[in-house]
Structures are given as C-alpha cells and as structure tokens.
C-alpha cells in the first residue's frame, strides 16, 4: 500500500468534516473516493499531500508517518490537480516546467503535452488563454512533470464539456496502464465512477460507509442519492 489512513478526523471551525476515517490505498491503479457533494471528499484529498493537517489520527505514506516527511518532498511525490484549473502566471511551457525548475531540472515539455493530448504548439501560449478543458490537461501535465508516484485528482472534470471529460478519463486509464502510478480520483458522478473503474471508498457526512470496486461504489452512491 502507498497510503494508510488511521482513524483520521478533521474539523473546519466548529464543524467536524471527517470522522474517524480509516482506509488503505493500493500500490498503483485507481483509488476512487466517491460521495455526495459536501461529504468531505475534497477535505480528505488535501490531507494526502499535507495541504491540510488532520486534527486526529495518523496518515502513513509508504509506512512512514507523513508528519515526519518534509512537506516539499512529499508534495513532489504526491501531485494534485484541483476541480478548476489554477494556472500560474506565464506560458504553458513555464507552467509545466515550474515544478522541475524548483529542483534545477529541465523537463520534456513537448513529451508531456503529447501525453495529455495537447499539441506541442501550445507550449508558447499564455496559460490563462487556454480553454478550461485545455487548461485542465495542462494542469495534469504540470503535475506529471515531477514524475509523481501518486496523482490526486479532485473532481478534475467538473468544469468540462463532455468531450474534454472523455479525454481526461482516457488519460487517467493511459497513465495507470503505462506509468504504473497510483491515481486517487475524487468523484460524485455515478457514471464516471463506473467508467474510471478501480476500487475505493464511499464517504458520507465525513465517514467511510463502504469500500469495494468501482461498480459497487457507484451502486451505493446511487442508493444514497449522490
């Protein structure tokens, strides 16, 4: 397993958002975190790379308590893509090269653009001029530039048109097949959960209420009205 969450709880102000969450992820493939809106999925995802800290419980990354790992080192190994694109100022090439540049490394921008299904011509385009679908693919390329062993995707298709949704889903399948990385995919859409596949957990009101394969998770999600 890559990650193990043990009895993790998280408060936001007065409200408890996660309550005693425990689960383990596989070494690679897709791990789904599904649940209705407001169930605590995004809050949970932010704990994987220490953008947030749990109030109780332990999170292990490859057997080590993540509190003992330098946050920058952890984040380079555990990339994240948010619901809506968050481009940094500058061109697509500068965005994709941002992570490796922090370490003084170069990056194969053209190769990464091809990998996410974008033309190499996009390299010189200003990142804030891309369409939402193009920008979201650039976000994935930017995260992949650091060659992470885990990629966290927080409802990455929620702002996209159907064609872009399919393109991102195909990209996820390709990444799992070719790069053998672990993708933690957050979704509240039953059909998407079925299409993405893999295994995972269903959370509701901050608790893990079910764990199984994607089809069963989708059935349960449908049943609780997600």
């Amino acid at each position: 397993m890559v990650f193990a969450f043990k009895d993790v709880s998280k408060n936001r102000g007065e409200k408890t958002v996660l309550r005693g969450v425990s689960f383990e992820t596989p070494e690679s493939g897709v791990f789904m975190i599904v649940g209705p809106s407001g169930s605590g999925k995004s809050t949970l995802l932010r704990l994987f790379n220490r953008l947030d800290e749990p109030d109780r419980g332990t999170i292990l990354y490859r057997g080590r308590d993540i509190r003992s790992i330098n946050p920058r080192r952890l984040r380079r190994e555990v990339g994240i893509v948010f619901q809506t694109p968050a481009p940094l100022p500058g061109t697509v090439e500068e965005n994709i090269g941002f992570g490796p540049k922090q370490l003084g490394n170069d990056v194969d921008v053209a190769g990464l653009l091809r990998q996410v299904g974008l033309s190499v011509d996009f390299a010189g385009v200003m990142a804030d001029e891309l369409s939402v679908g193009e920008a979201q693919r650039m976000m994935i390329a930017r995260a992949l530039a650091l060659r992470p062993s885990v990629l966290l995707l927080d409802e990455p298709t929620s702002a996209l048109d159907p064609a872009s949704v399919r393109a991102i889903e195909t990209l996820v399948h390709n990444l799992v097949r070719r790069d053998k990385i672990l993708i933690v995919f957050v979704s509240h859409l039953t059909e998407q959960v079925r299409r993405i596949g893999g295994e995972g957990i269903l959370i509701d009101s901050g608790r893990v209420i079910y764990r199984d394969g994607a089809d069963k998770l989708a059935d349960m999600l449908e049943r609780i009205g997600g």
Partner: protein
Amino acid sequence: MLDIALSSVLIAVAIILSTVLQMGLRKSLLIGMVRSFVQLIAVGYIIHFIFQLEGIVYQILLLVAMSVVASFTAHRQVGGIRGVFIITWVSIIAGSILTLGFLIAFGVIDTTPRYFIPFGGMIIGNTMNSIIIALERLISQTRDRRHIVESALSLGASPRRAIHHLLKSAVRASLIPRINMLKIAGIIQLPGAFMGMLIAGASPIEAAKLQIIVMYMIVGCVSISIMVLSFLMPRFLFNKNEQLVFTEEKNILKL
C-alpha cells in the same frame, strides 16, 4: 480659536448638505471634525512639551510611540491577522532608521525637534498607508487565489516562491502611488511641506528644495519598509508545515 471656530463653519455646511441630500455622512463628518480637533490640539501640546526638553531620547520615544500606533492601525485594518502588528512595526522602524539615519549622518537634516519630529511623523504616516495597501492586496489575493498558491506548493515550491507573483503585485500596488507622487509633484498639486514653507515666509526656491528632500525621504522609507515587509510576510501567511494559515472560510486560521 476664533479662526478655528470660523473654519468649522465649512464642516457644518458639509453636515447640512449631507443631511439635506440624505448622504448618510452626518455622523462621520461630526466625529471626524471632533477627532481631528482633539488629536491635533493634543499632539500640538505634546510636541510643544517635547520642544522644551533637552535630548533626542524624548523625540525618539515620540516617534516610537507613533510607529506603535501606526502598526496597530495596520493590524486592525487588515482584519487582525496574526503577526501583522509586529511585521508592520519592524518594517516601519527599519525604513525610518535607515532613511532618517542617513539624512542625519550626512547633515541633510539636524536632530532638533523642529526638524526631527515632523520628518519622522511624515515618513511613519506615509509608510503606514503604503503598508496597509500592500497587506490588504496580498492577503485578499492570497485568499482569492488560494488554489494557485496551493498548486505551486504542491509542485514543491517554497511558500515564498508560491506567493512570489502576489508579493510582487502587492509591492507594486503600494509603491506606484508614491512613484506617481514624484512624477506629478508641483504640476497637479502643491505638496504639504512646500505649502507650509511658503505660508511660514520661506522663499519658493527654499520651499521647493525642502519638498524635494521630503519626497525623496518618504519614497526611500516607504520602499525600504515595503521590501522588509515583503521579506517577512510569507512567514505569517504559512505555518511551519508550509500550509496557508487561512482556509476557504474567511478568517478561520489554522495556526
């Protein structure tokens, strides 16, 4: 006092106009008029008292007190975020010591209360205003662009690197009005020190020379203070785990 009473008639006119036109400014105007009267008369007596005292220590104490009030004002204006008071104070003190120290060391101004206190007061007041602009800009943009900052953190950037573009924008926003002040000096408005010197009977050339020194001093102090502020600020926007100290919900701090 008769002159003051007569000039207050102008504020009374403004209050009457505000009432007739239902602008809702009557109370603010009244409070502003009373506060400015009390504060200026009080500071007049304090400075009069300090003018009688021998030694620069009392003047420095007065300027330190002004810098504390300025830092507290900045702290209140930006929503009481942890650490704002201390970094504002350190920034103001750093800029003031360097600019006043330089001008005194080279004999541009002397340490008599007549020069030292007005010059010190001017740089502290102007620096406070610029710091408030920088802080408000930086904090609101960091909140609004939280995902961009957290994206940069997630790519292994240091907190300083993650907010570099926001820091740059805040520094520019706070300094551009000062730079514009230099560009338009004497063309669109006659600055305060220039006017004061003219009223006091100095020649226009002497007044212009003093005004140039004042403006260079203000821009120098503001620039140094803002740079110090931008150096210190990342420490207060992130905690030791390199996480933003405020979440999506405004003012919920995770310290």
